[in-house]
Structures are given as structure tokens and as C-alpha cells.
């Protein structure tokens, strides 16, 4: 292999956004290299056993892992896409060179355009003993259960009644694990009511305006104390309950994995609606560092359907900027933008729309 790998478009991250970006760019004729730190691309889709909503264009009705396999196949069948698995991007340098570690080797890549699609990581919340073994992020529980076929324990307290908390609770029940309850600090259930109803029908209580005050256990979790919150989100004395559980699962949101964007000197902004610090970018997903695009959760936490469309948009834009697909790219860009608006048209999408408006509000985006 030459000392520096030359490529038109480098994509960092092989989840729904990265894979979609890769095939979109390659379809227009660009040469693409995709880096994936895991031994197989697919990102978090590989552990999603539920059926997706939305429209047919975003594979509604298919289960997450089936969508993942489809995207992987699309890239595998495209000769313009090269995938390096077990390869972690390390840094993006001033001269445009990207370094990576792959199978024990230090690699250098010199791309013309970069698409960062690194996704998000799970948030933690503060309570005494929150570091005990037996306390997992919801994604970890999904990995153990749905990828490895191993249950995390016997009885679970789920924290967070957003879609992830609801879906993972249902998946725990499918795997034969008892869910003691789902608690949610806000007064309303954040996720889709269709998921919540399914769980309640199975007899699992969803307690809104409730929080965890502490976990306890000798070497690992043996129980949790929960309590009710008043309208000012303060614990109400005397409402404590002691739950004997050996697993506490945190589904309290995600934050964008933006280290590479910070390091590449993209202008960043804290936008709560997008779940944290995100790079400022224009509507074509190009950041303030010209030629560096973002797509998926790294540009604001949403879900896999919009990540796939954002990936496609970033792939098209990067390829188009290199002179590929001159006749079709503008139409494809418009289609992708229209699909994104459609996906974000519902009440759940309003937060994202507001966040993106805040993000593009103050200049800096390279349009």
C-alpha cells in the first residue's frame, strides 16, 4: 500500500448515515473510502429488532437490522466503495490528511472531501452509586441481548420513557427478562404512545414525574430507590420506593460524537434541541471547514431514518462538488431535502427543526 491513500471522498463511520452517504456518492461516480471502527458496518442498526416507521422510502415496515444488512449490501455491491473495518479515525490535520489506526497499523489518507458520520454516545445521569456494575446504557443492553444473545440480568429498572427506553423495555421482555418499571422525570412519556401502550398492556408500569435517587449493592446493583417529583421537578419526601432490581438501564438520551469536528476546527455551537455541541453547517451539511460534511447523529441527535437521508444528501453534495453527477445532483439534493422536511414535519420533528434553525441562525456556515 502507498504511504498515503489518495481518495475522492472519505467517510468516517459506517452506520446508517455513513453507509447511505457512501452509496449515494459512489452512485454519482465518486470513489469512496469508508472507515468503520467495528468489525462490521451497520452502526446501531445491527441491534434494532423493531420495525421502522415513516415512509417506504426510508424502509418503513422493515426491522432495523434488516435495513442495516440492505445498506451494507448496497455498498458491498458498488465497486466504487471501499470499506475498511476495524479502523478508527484518529485525527483530521490542517493539510487535509486524515490519520487512522487499523489492525495495529497507523494509516494516512488524503481525501478531497470528508464526511463525518460518527453518530452519538449515550448520556449518563448523576445519582449515588451510578458507577456500579449492572448499570448500563440502553445501547449496551441491546448489544448484549440482540447481538450476543445474552440477557443483562433478571429484573430491570428502565430510566427514560423516550422511544429508546420504551423499545428496549419491550425487547427485554421478548428476551424473557422482567422489567420492574420505567421511570421518566418529565410529566409525560416522550416516546411514541404506540410503544408505550404495548408495554403497559404487558403489565409494566410507566411512572412519569419519577426519578432515581440512588442505586445500591455490594459489588453490583441489587436495587434502586426511586421517588416522585413535584411540578418543579423536586423530589417529594415520603414517596420513595425501594425496587429490588439487578439491572438499571439508562435511556436518557444521546450526545453527538463530535470530537473529530472539534479537532478539525469546525465552528461548533451548543444547541440543546440537537442534544449538545454540534458543528455549524449549511443546509447541504457542509461545515465551516470547507469540504468537511456531517451527517446523522453527529450533526444533531435524531433517529436512523433521517440519518439515512442526511447521509444520502451529504454523499450527493460531496460528489457534486467534485464534478460528479452534474445533470442529476441538483434534483437528488432537492429530493433529499424534501424528504428531510417530511420526516421532521411531525410533532417529534419540531424540536430538530428548531435546533437546526438556531444552528444556521448566526453566520459562519459556508454556503
Amino acid at each position: 500500500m502507498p504511504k498515503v491513500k489518495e481518495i475522492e471522498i472519505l467517510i468516517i463511520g459506517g452506520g446508517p448515515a455513513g453507509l447511505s452517504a457512501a452509496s449515494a456518492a459512489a452512485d454519482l461516480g465518486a470513489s469512496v473510502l469508508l472507515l468503520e471502527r467495528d468489525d462490521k458496518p451497520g452502526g446501531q442498526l445491527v441491534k434494532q429488532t423493531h420495525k421502522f416507521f415513516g415512509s417506504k422510502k426510508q424502509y418503513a415496515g422493515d426491522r432495523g437490522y434488516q435495513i442495516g444488512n440492505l445498506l451494507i449490501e448496497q455498498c458491498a455491491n458498488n465497486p466504487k466503495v471501499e470499506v475498511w473495518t476495524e479502523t478508527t479515525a484518529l485525527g483530521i490535520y490542517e493539510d487535509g490528511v486524515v490519520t487512522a489506526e487499523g489492525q495495529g497499523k497507523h494509516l494516512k489518507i488524503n481525501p478531497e472531501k470528508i464526511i463525518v458520520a460518527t453518530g452519538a454516545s449515550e448520556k449518563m445521569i448523576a445519582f449515588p452509586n451510578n458507577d456500579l456494575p449492572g448499570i448500563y446504557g440502553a445501547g449496551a443492553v441491546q448489544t448484549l441481548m440482540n447481538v450476543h444473545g445474552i440477557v443483562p440480568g433478571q429484573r430491570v429498572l428502565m430510566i427514560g420513557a423516550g422511544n429508546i427506553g420504551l423499545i428496549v423495555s419491550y425487547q427485554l421482555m421478548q428476551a424473557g427478562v422482567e422489567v420492574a418499571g420505567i421511570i421518566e422525570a418529565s410529566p409525560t412519556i416522550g416516546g411514541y404512545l404506540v410503544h408505550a401502550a404495548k408495554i403497559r398492556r404487558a403489565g409494566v408500569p410507566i411512572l412519569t414525574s419519577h426519578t432515581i435517587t440512588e442505586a445500591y449493592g455490594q459489588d453490583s446493583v441489587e436495587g434502586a430507590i426511586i421517588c416522585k417529583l413535584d411540578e418543579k421537578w423536586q423530589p417529594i419526601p415520603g414517596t420513595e420506593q425501594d425496587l429490588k432490581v439487578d439491572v438499571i438501564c439508562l435511556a436518557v438520551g444521546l450526545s453527538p460524537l463530535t470530537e473529530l469536528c472539534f479537532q478539525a476546527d469546525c465552528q461548533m455551537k451548543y444547541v440543546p434541541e440537537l442534544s449538545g455541541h454540534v458543528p455549524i453547517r449549511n443546509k447541504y451539511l457542509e461545515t465551516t471547514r470547507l469540504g468537511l460534511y456531517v451527517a446523522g447523529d453527529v450533526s444533531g441527535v435524531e433517529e436512523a431514518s433521517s440519518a439515512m437521508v442526511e447521509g444520502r444528501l451529504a454523499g450527493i453534495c460531496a460528489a457534486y462538488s467534485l464534478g460528479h453527477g452534474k445533470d442529476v445532483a441538483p434534483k437528488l439534493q432537492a429530493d433529499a431535502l424534501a424528504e428531510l422536511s417530511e420526516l421532521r414535519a411531525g410533532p417529534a420533528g419540531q424540536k430538530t427543526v428548531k435546533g437546526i434553525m438556531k444552528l444556521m441562525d448566526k453566520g459562519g456556515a459556508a454556503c
Partner: protein
Amino acid sequence: MRITEHPILEFQRGEEVSFSFDGQELKGYEGETIAAALHAVGVRVLGHSQTMHRPRGLFCAIGNCSSCLMVVDGEPNVRICVEKLKSGMRVETQQGKGCLR
């Protein structure tokens, strides 16, 4: 504990192999992560924190959080949630920051 029946998924497991955990011989399946193999036999404490010596377990399972660092075949600071199990592997609890070989 391993899931034997699942309404949606079928689990493809590799060959059954032996490995050691702090000198104790255990069994797991080749190709699964070390963390998965340890979890399957009920090992949840993977190490202790450096200063307060509090027990540490699996948290993110995708190589982000470094809560599961162990010594594998003499190499310290291996994220066992993403390191695949191989026959005969020597997995040990790490003391402090670990020592370079």
C-alpha cells in the same frame, strides 16, 4: 445467561472455546466479545477504579467508555467489550493503569 429462544432473532454462535479469567477456566464462543462471554457466565465485575477502587462493569458495550479495560494475553487496557474471544485467551483483572509489556 444466554437466550435460547427469541421471537425474532436467531443467534449464530461460533465454536465453543475455553479461556481463562483470573486463572479460572471458563467457556465461551469464538467470535463473541470477551465481555459477552464473561456476562454469559455471570461475571459482572470487570475491574476496580484506580483511586477509589470501586467495582467497574460493562457500560456502553461499543468501545466508547473504557469502563471494561482488562489485561488480555498480557496486554493491558484492552476494551473487552469490542475484543473478540479466541481459544486459550488469558483474561485478567487489571491493577491500576496496567503495565506495558
